[in-house]
């Protein structure tokens, strides 16, 4: 017999190895590309850019001047056909962010590259972050204060000191107003509402026989209402006074087009000179902006400010979901694996559970709304909160229903992972436990569950990852664009499971597709996406660390 020389490499499977390797590398590349894009775009938002002054060409040599940050430069030659000038030269254009929305009408503008005569970066440019209308940019001129002499820029030191001092005091006053209006008046409103409810109840109960006791109570209620009303009036007056004090000081800036523009100092949140910052100053500013983004509430239809409520809402909801889904899934899996008699019925149940994982999430949202919100929530309202009806308490979307809906959605993941982990505990160990006189439950509780804890945690990680990133069902069961208060706050009972909340995933959708100024929202969309990814990552890392510690505790390759 002669050995044949191998003719085609097909037989050895070489091409298949390459193909499978290619499949993997494509997947990895796509994921890495996505992550790189989100990281770059998401972090770029916080980097303080230079502000450029752009002179445009014109015939009389007296062209327009623009002031702004260069956001993007792109090739537009592919769009040439729709353009009138069809010269051969490639057409490039620059997008600049000019701010000053209320004066210029638009904050963003595209400028064709060949129309730019000169670009410079003047040192004196100031950038103002404002409460309304987004950022303002310009050359500072002078500070106007009521009943005081104006301070021109020339008196550099005094100008700087005054501006700093003014911004500081005005912001402090804002805080005070906010505290009065939101916290104190909010609390009074809450108390008023409670009184009103009690009053309504009393009146309904005793229409027929108004006994003396009820009458007394009613009077009491009315008098306390009166005191509250007085308190409210006092606070409202105080706030009004403070608001009046917010008027007066103005900063005059010169815009690029030569227009002078006065800005109320009370509008200024922060200011800095972007072209004067050193590299370290820029790094400091970068982290400062990240901190503001994480810790502040959103402003101006969510396109400005931070995302703290959304971040917090996502975190609380995901944790709540995990707390519900893990015990629920583990219990179901234990019965399915350990107690149920294996047979066609159990097999059917298992297939059904697996298929449940593939049901589109919006279906769970609809179910959650129908079952949790309307049925369960409606019943709870009727039984316990009937005095508040027709205003629903639990009969509307909220944190609890959103968490439960997501728990329902992710429970198959936990069941499957737990079943696998339980099955991986060897028969040998089980017999050892039983041989020591353990009952079946003791065996499960003391031996099998600890040994399969790492596997169960894997299921929890997968559930958390899926739950935290889900948006569609949440829109139906409790997520809102802007929630007035956090679901956990300082008013009794501290954790408000019935409250609507904000969510990073929905925030992204809302900013990207529902925002009036999508161009202005774009940076925040990227930053929010990055934050959501990092949040999921951190939650998963926490679970992974816990899993590794458990593995080490039961150290051995056997499990």
């Amino acid at each position, binding site marked *: 017999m002669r050995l044949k020389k191998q003719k085609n490499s097909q037989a050895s499977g070489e091409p298949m190895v390459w193909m499978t390797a290619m499949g993997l590398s494509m997947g990895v590349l796509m994921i890495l590309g996505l992550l790189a894009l989100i990281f770059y775009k998401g972090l770029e938002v916080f980097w303080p850019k230079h502000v450029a002054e752009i002179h445009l060409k014109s015939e009389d040599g007296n062209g327009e001047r623009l002031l702004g940050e260069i956001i993007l430069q792109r090739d537009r030659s592919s769009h040439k056909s729709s353009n009138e000038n069809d010269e051969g030269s490639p057409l490039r254009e620059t997008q600049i962010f000019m701010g000053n929305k209320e004066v210029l009408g638009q904050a963003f503008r595209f400028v064709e590259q060949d129309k730019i005569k000169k670009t410079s970066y003047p040192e004196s440019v100031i950038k103002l972050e404002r409460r309304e209308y987004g950022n303002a940019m310009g050359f500072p001129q002078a500070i106007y204060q009521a009943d005081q002499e104006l301070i021109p820029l020339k008196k550099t030191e005094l100008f700087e000191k005054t501006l700093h001092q003014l911004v500081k005091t005005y912001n402090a006053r804002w805080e005070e107003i906010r505290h009065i209006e939101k916290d104190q008046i909010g609390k009074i409103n809450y108390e008023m509402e409670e009184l009103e409810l009690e009053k309504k109840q009393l009146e309904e109960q005793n229409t027929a026989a108004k006994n003396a006791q009820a009458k007394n109570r009613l009077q009491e209620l009315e008098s306390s209402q009166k005191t509250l009303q007085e308190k409210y009036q006092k606070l409202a007056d105080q706030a009004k006074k403070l608001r009046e004090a917010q008027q007066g000081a103005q900063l005059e800036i010169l815009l690029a087009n030569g227009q002078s523009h006065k800005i109320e100092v009370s509008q200024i949140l922060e200011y800095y000179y972007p072209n004067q910052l050193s590299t370290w100053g820029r790094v400091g500013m970068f982290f400062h902006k990240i901190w503001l983004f994480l810790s502040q509430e959103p402003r101006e239809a969510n396109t400005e400010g931070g995302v703290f409520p959304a971040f917090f809402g996502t975190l609380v909801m995901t944790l709540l979901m995990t707390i519900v889904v893990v015990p629920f899934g583990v219990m179901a899996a234990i019965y399915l694996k350990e107690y149920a008699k294996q047979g066609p019925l159990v097999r059917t149940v298992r297939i059904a559970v697996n298929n449940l994982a593939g049901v589109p999430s919006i279906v769970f949202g609809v179910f959650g709304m129908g079952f949790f919100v309307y049925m369960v929530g409606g019943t709870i309202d009727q039984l316990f909160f009937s005095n508040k009806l027709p205003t629903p308490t639990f009969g509307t979307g909220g944190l609890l229903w959103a968490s439960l809906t997501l728990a329902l959605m992710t429970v198959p993941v936990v069941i499957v992972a737990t079943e696998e982990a339980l099955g991986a505990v060897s028969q040998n*160990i089980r017999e050892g*436990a039983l041989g020591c*006189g*353990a009952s079946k439950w003791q065996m499960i509780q*003391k031996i099998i569950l600890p040994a399969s804890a790492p596997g169960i945690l894997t299921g929890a990680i997968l559930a958390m990852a899926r739950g935290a990133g889900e948006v569609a069902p949440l829109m139906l069961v409790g997520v809102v664009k802007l929630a007035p208060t956090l679901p956990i706050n300082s008013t009794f009972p501290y954790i408000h499971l019935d409250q609507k909340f904000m969510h990073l995933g929905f925030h992204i959708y809302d900013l990207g597709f529902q925002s009036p100024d999508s161009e202005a929202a774009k940076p925040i969309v990227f930053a929010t996406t990055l934050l959501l990814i990092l949040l999921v990552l951190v939650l998963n890392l926490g679970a992974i660390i816990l899993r590794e510690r458990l593995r080490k505790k*039961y150290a051995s390759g056997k499990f």
Partner: protein
Amino acid sequence: MPVENSNQKLNPTIIQIENFSFFYGKNQALFDIDLSIPEKEVTALIGPSGCGKSTLLRSINRMNDLVDESNHRGRILIQDQDIHDTQLEVISLRKRVGMVFQKSNPFPKSIYENVVFGLRIAGKTNKNDLDEVVERSLKASALWDEVKDRLKDSALGLSGGQMQRLCIARAIANQPEVLLMDEPCSALDPVATAKIESLIHELKKNYTIVIVTHNMQQASRVSDRTAFLYMGKLIEYDETETLFTNPKQQQTEDYITGRFG
């Protein structure tokens, strides 16, 4: 089935197996076994693979209950009490009849927790008592000197022989009357095997031991009595010395001389 019961020893019977048959579904694994096992002696069950010796052993603490669709006929009495009595809880039976398995199976816990497992599930929490039991059991299983400084370490870090001795310690921590051993040395090297065998000699002073083994030398070394099973039937049961030197049945002789099995 003719069973020679030479009553030279004074030790009373602790386990009385009467007319016992066992079925896995429709398969009959044991046929009308009659056997009386004396107290504080080592009784070896030998026979070729699939002869039913493990089934018989696992019937004594009702470990076979775990197999679906298994059933039995006949009786097994321990101290004159029927182990299948519906009044008797299987859990209390297993506390009286400890078991050591073929493959060592320490729990994924610390050495200490492995030993006190039986006590913990029985609800004993007094630290001093537990410490005492750990020391006594580990000393009895000749493991104390090797592990006394690392009782809190994972049991899975021990060597194979140590793990098996830990399993013995775990079994005797419950203070059982009977200790069942299902081929306890089959996965161990000769040194570890020798240790376990000398341990069996020691344990015999306090416990009744029933051991299943494939290894006839081992049976002759450690046991006082030997039962030979073949195809689910008890062929011969006698004092070990008699059975190995002067078997009464042809099948026994064929097996111990290595003609089959």
